């Protein structure tokens, strides 16, 4: 590859990374808004409620401490993913600053992969806790413990694992790049 092509490729990497840096910011904001939106604008997120372990009716019937605790528990996976997206945003920020084969952005990518896997593993647990909290006010015998698992979780776990392995390989690439740079 000629140096002109390399410069053009790096220019494109910087440009795309700048765009993705801001896309991550929007995604982080969305993660903070998704649970309140489920709560306060159910029609808007109707399509995304198919994997919820409790009905929207049960959620809206909640009041007092149960409402806030349920909302907090429901937000845990979103907060974990928001942290992962924050690290991904930092990685794109580094790429935009031309820090490509460096250990720091690669650490951010690895953290994103871990956050993605953690979020996927936490989701069924918080879903189960949400179902218990949401039906807590019902009489005995009508309370529900519901665990939701789907193919999407398996795919996300696979994706998270893939990202961690890619980050690992990139870490080795960064080490080799560092070694090459110390050769004259």
């Amino acid at each position, binding site marked *: 590859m000629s140096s002109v092509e390399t410069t053009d490729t790096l220019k494109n990497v910087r440009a795309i990374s700048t765009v993705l840096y801001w896309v991550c910011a929007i995604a982080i904001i969305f993660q903070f808004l998704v649970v309140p939106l489920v709560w306060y604008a159910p029609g808007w997120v109707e399509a995304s409620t198919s994997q919820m372990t409790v009905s929207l009716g049960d959620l809206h019937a909640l009041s007092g401490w149960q409402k806030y605790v349920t909302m907090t528990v429901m937000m845990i996976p979103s907060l974990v993913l928001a942290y992962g997206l924050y690290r991904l945003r930092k990685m794109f920020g580094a790429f935009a600053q031309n820090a490509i084969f460096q250990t720091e952005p690669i650490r951010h990518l690895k953290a994103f992969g871990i956050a993605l896997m953690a979020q996927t593993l936490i989701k069924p647990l918080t879903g189960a806790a949400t179902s218990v909290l949401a039906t807590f006010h019902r009489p005995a015998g009508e309370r529900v413990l519901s665990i939701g698992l789907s193919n999407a979780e398996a795919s996300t776990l696979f994706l998270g694992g893939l990202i961690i392995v890619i980050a690992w390989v990139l870490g080795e690439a960064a080490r080799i790049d560092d*070694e090459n740079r*110390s*050769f*004259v």
Partner: protein
Amino acid sequence: MGIIVRLDVMLATRKMKSKELAARIGISEQNLSLLKSGKVRGVRFETLSAICEELECQPGDLLEFQPD
């Protein structure tokens, strides 16, 4: 490290400045300075060959091993 770089001695013998050698062999002055001070992890054969050609010397004239 037991390897001593004798490039500065060779440059003085040949009355050539670092800047000139760097330009002739196509590496930056900064990298040549690092090489002169021995602050590099390695030297490419390509660089070593270019230096030897410009200074009309052998690799052994540029590098010396001193046991610790």
